[in-house]
């Protein structure tokens, strides 16, 4: 089409020598005519893209036939003959021959929230919505940087919303964190290592001994202010998927950064420990780690301690994700041009200063698509918890199918769960691709 434009030339008779006008020279622009039907428009498009040769035509016709066949047969099951309101599978079968999606309608809240108290559904929904606000500044660099403070506070807020509990506990937690930071700042001038150890020790001891008792003391004296607490055994369905997936990614980020730095460090023992951990975790299937969570983890803790299974799964999933995260961030570190490291050295920055101010900010930005991909993988992998008896979307099919009302139903459940996973993962992967392209336009090492 552009060819036609360029061929149309404009002749201006006045330019001719002596003002002579030649009869065969056109005096006006000839309007661009449409390209022939055979080279443009839908028919040409189809000819070029689908029927360009004999073999091409055969392949296209076969695929078309398959598509039509699949779509028509699915349509009757999915749409025309499907049942959306019924109390049991038997009722469904009486109404029509198609899919019995009534089970999804009846058990929708269980698929979404598990056994979370229905009057408190607003809490997970709010936490879910706020998740986007928290993630926005990380995924969009045009947003104000101040929003990062909200992102940092989000994990705590989400924890409080989901599990509930006393607001005093949360306040004390924040207080302890601030105090730890102050201790670190005060001692930092004296010696970094000692400062880190003292601050860390303070934080650990606070949680071991003070947090619980001080919280209950305030609850008893001032009075309980907060949200009704919900124990984790009530979590299920996609709520559980999100809790495990998001916790795994968020908690694994700092560990992953440390591991990646350790793996790149030139201290042999530190490096060996990090490499050993990363390779071990990446070398075994997640399901074996979940078996450890469900059957072994308690043996590794002092006799009598017992976490509930969801916390144990969260621990193992975090360890699992941090090994993968470390590899993603290592990729980011490796992608940084050497000049950046050398420039930092030339400025006389110490290792931590260089890492904190020059290396990590750039490496993390490059790693974001990889982190999103790790998250997608982890999000899908959370379905494995159904094998150890947690009621995630796949696990919750079990008690539903055991209910004599819905005994024997299966395709509808698979379809529904698969669809939700598809939508979530597909959106995220598209976003990660978009982000990758955006980063790609910048500097190239």
């Amino acid at each position: 089409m552009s060819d036609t434009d360029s061929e149309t030339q404009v002749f201006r008779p006045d330019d001719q020598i002596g003002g002579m006008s030649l009869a065969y020279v056109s005096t006006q622009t000839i309007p661009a005519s449409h390209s022939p039907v055979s080279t443009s428009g839908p028919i040409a498009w189809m000819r070029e893209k689908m029927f360009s040769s004999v073999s091409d035509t055969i392949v296209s016709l076969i695929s078309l036939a398959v598509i039509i066949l699949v779509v028509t047969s699915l349509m009757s099951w999915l749409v025309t003959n499907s049942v959306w309101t019924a109390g049991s599978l038997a009722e469904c079968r009486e109404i029509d021959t198609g899919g019995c999606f009534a089970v999804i309608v009846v058990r929708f809240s269980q698929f979404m929230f598990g056994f979370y108290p229905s009057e408190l559904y607003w809490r997970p929904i709010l936490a879910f919505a706020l998740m986007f606000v928290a993630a926005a500044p990380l995924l969009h660099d045009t947003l104000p940087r101040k929003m990062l403070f909200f992102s940092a506070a989000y994990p705590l807020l989400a924890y409080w919303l989901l599990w509930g509990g006393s607001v005093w506990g949360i306040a004390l937690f924040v207080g302890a964190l601030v105090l730890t930071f102050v201790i670190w700042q005060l001692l930092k001038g004296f010696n970094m290592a000692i400062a880190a150890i003292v601050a860390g020790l303070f934080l650990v001891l606070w949680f071991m001994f003070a947090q619980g008792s001080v919280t209950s003391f305030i609850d008893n004296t001032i009075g309980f202010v907060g949200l009704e607490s919900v124990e984790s055994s009530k979590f299920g369905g996609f709520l559980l998927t999100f809790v495990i997936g998001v916790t795994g990614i968020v908690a694994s980020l700092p560990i992953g950064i440390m591991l990646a730095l350790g793996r790149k460090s030139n201290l042999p023992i530190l490096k060996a420990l990090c490499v050993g951990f990363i390779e071990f975790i990446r070398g075994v299937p997640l399901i074996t780690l979940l078996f450890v969570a469900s059957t072994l983890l308690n043996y590794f803790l002092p006799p009598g301690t017992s976490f509930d299974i969801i916390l144990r799964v969260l621990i193992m999933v975090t360890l699992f994700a941090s090994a993968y995260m470390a590899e993603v961030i290592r990729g980011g570190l490796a992608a940084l041009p050497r000049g950046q490291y050398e420039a930092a050295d030339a400025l006389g920055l110490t290792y931590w200063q260089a890492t904190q101010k020059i290396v990590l900010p750039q490496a993390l930005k490059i790693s974001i698509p990889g982190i999103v991909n790790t998250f997608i993988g982890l999000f899908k992998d959370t379905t494995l918890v159904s094998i150890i008896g947690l009621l995630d979307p796949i696990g919750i099919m079990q008690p539903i199918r055991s209910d004599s009302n819905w005994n024997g139903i299966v395709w509808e459940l698979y379809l529904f769960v698969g669809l939700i996973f598809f939508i979530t993962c597909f959106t995220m992967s598209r976003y990660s691709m978009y982000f990758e392209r955006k980063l790609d336009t910048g500097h190239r090492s």
Partner: protein
Amino acid sequence: MKTKLLTLALGTAALAFSATANAATLDDVKAKDFLQCGVSTGFPGFAFTDDNGDWQGFDPAFCRAVAAAVLGDASKVKFTPTTGKTRFTALASGEIDMLARNTTETFSRDVDLKFTFAPVNYYDGQGFMVRKDLGVDSALGLSSATICIQTGTTTELNLADYFRANNMSYEPVPVETNAEAQEKYLANACDAYTTDASGLSATRSAFENPDDHIVLPEIISKEPLGPLVRQGDDQWADIVKWTILALITAEEVGVTAGNADQMKADSTDPNIQRLLGATEDNYGAMFGLDNDWALRAIKAGGNYGEIFARYLGTETPLGIERGVNALWTDGGLMYAAPIR
């Protein structure tokens, strides 16, 4: 120096953790004010969730009875769904206080895995279900058949033993859950489905045409099912044990959820008075409860017969006859030690 400090910190941390350990289960349960009960992830009649997401079934009913006896409120139970693999660890590690997950009492579980079994609340045995049109009327005719079996249970071992003893071959199709087994069996992907006879009836009842299937007469194993607790806490084991016995006794003497209060007030039968705490014997105090423990347990979900009828009996879709699970007075095996 620093490392010493850290070891010290870790050591004290360890101490802090273990401080909560080894307390008696009863005190533990009272302190946290709920009972953590392990159930199956889903088994028709025995454990399933209703449309509101509450756990229902034969096993949860016993959890509720214990909660009512101990805490005075049948709703103070939290359920932990467990799989065949995770159930014993969950109990051994203290994650759950009792396990009511149609679990067979066996020597090795009692002795080697260190659990204490409460009295049997359901006598079961492993059987086979086949299609009628298969023309098989005895398990001995199942040579070279394909058999669906739930893995992680004693049924696997029984099946291997039975076919070996009778010198027959078979093709096991292991499945994780009852729902999958049923799906496979209905699709004819296996000729027979083997599990506890109760499970077979339960599964069969859910079929569109239950009459097309028969449960073969052979029962190839003994499967006494009952709740279990950790070994070494006799007080707690006693509480679970006597709660079950109280429910059986209640059926024997005709106390139901509906008439329990009235019986306590009016009855002159010393058996009933002792059961419902109408006498001054203070049986409850002997294991750390009050006098009304059995009354509350009965009011929580009815006596043994009522629970059976509600979830498994002939009025339910499962339609299981009492059979050996009838009271001894009716020719069954339910024979509760007297409360005195």
